[in-house]
């Protein structure tokens, strides 16, 4: 039993929760300074 959760559906929900948040964090960090093309052209 991982993390005290016996059911694979609930456990995967718990882990995906952490994973999707990390995805947001990593995406934000990697692209922190990207996508600023307009401020220079405007």
């Amino acid at each position: 039993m991982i993390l005290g959760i016996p059911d694979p559906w609930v456990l995967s929900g718990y882990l995906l929760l952490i994973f999707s948040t990390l995805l947001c964090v990593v995406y934000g960090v990697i692209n922190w300074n990207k996508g600023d093309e307009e401020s220079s052209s405007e």
Partner: protein
Amino acid sequence: MDYVILVIVFLIYFLLVGYVGYLAWKQTKSSEDFMIAGRKTHPYVMALSYGATFISTAAIVGFGGAAGQFGMGLLWLTVLNVFCGIFIAFIIMGKRTRKMGHNLGSLTFPEFLSRRFNSKFIQYFSGGIIFFGMPIYASVVLIGAARFMETSLSLNFHLSLLVLSVIVAAYVIFGGIKGVMYTEAVQGTIMLFGMVFLLIFTYWILGGVTEAHTALTNLAPHFPADALAIGGTGWTTFPTLGSPFWWSLVSTTIIGVGIGVLAQPQLAVRFMTVKSDRELNRAVLMGGIFIVFSTGTAFIVGALSNVYFFDKLGQISVDVVGGNIDKIIPEFINSALPEWFVYVFLLTLLAAAMSTLSSQYHAQGTSLGRDIYETLKNNKNVESITLNRIGILIAVVLAFALSLILPVGVVAQGTALFYGICAAAFLSVYVCALYWKRTTKEGAIAGIISGISLSLFWIIFIFGKTAEGLGICKLLTGQSMLIQAAPFSSIDVIIIAVPISFIFTIVVSLLTKPMDPEYIEKVYKGIGSKAKVSGK
């Protein structure tokens, strides 16, 4: 709890919100300022404002309580909230919405769709859906907040309604979207702090993450009988596949609310308030953290409250609160957390309600002023702040009046109702607007009308909870819903109406003449493969 301290805390909070609203008012000079914050919002403000609008008190107390009764399967909703509601919404939908909205010079979500398809009908019809559909959702949030002020401050319910309406109306009417977003950033920050502390403290008093979950798993023999009867299996296990509980959890809660968020006008308009993709990239990080801690904490703590109550009182949460699951989270906080946190948490709940409410008022007001009145009157591009302010005032009065008369059955379904209608009406057209150049004006209109018609039919006649809550089906046919057989009465409107609306949008588009290529070129300028070319 000391009421004097609580009143002081609330007063400080109201003063802070008032001050931020005042700053917003000083910076609001044009229609663009009033509706999309001059396209210059800071990513932190944008992300927290988006999150605080998205998460209302009901999401924390209502769904948290539901997790107390039904268990951690609800965490899948948070997964979708973060993955769809933030990651997909910001990156896949948000970036194109921002760019296209800028190309088209649109200031509201209906205006965005209308200009994309060159159709005034889309603007006032979509504005109408928002203006007439949202008051139920807004009054549900208002009622929740007023009930909560009634219990925490011992204020009269009607007085609470009035106080809240006046305060929120003041900063939305004067400050416009800046008033909404700045105050939401403050409210979101309070919410974030409150929820992070709540999560950490709960795990800490229960001996750690694995220990707390294991204790909850071991409580399974005490899982409530009524939850077992509809297919529940335990707090840390998923319900039986195909059972009424499974359908309700997967279709309404996880898919309905999780996907429905993508087509919420009051959220989509936020993408147009930032200057460039860089702000959205940064906001993804902040928004993801905000959502995981707000909804995730509520579900985890709601479920784990069983361990605490069973340990202290020998009862599971539902029994401790006498069956009223809305009281699980407040009861847990009162019993388990330090007293100072009770004040913080009450503030968190008030902030969550006010932040959702302010966005609703703003979306409704601009729908009436900009999308309906100005479009029908044909006087675009005038400085229309006054008109929108009048629209907002009407929205506030409408929500206030509805709060006094709405029956309980409707209140319980108000949020799901509006999410369902919006997703059904807008999701297919919104996605096609952003990604399929071949979509035509006629296709878009067909998508919106088929989605709204089917969703209303489904909500009134088929979907059990709403059909029973509204009572229209019973009035017309004598039966509370048209099809009694499972699983139809448990299938959320979004599962049915969104695919149908997609089919209508696509088929009608393919059958009608493509839009003018030059116009499409202008709409998509700088989007997709051409982004780099135009950037030079």
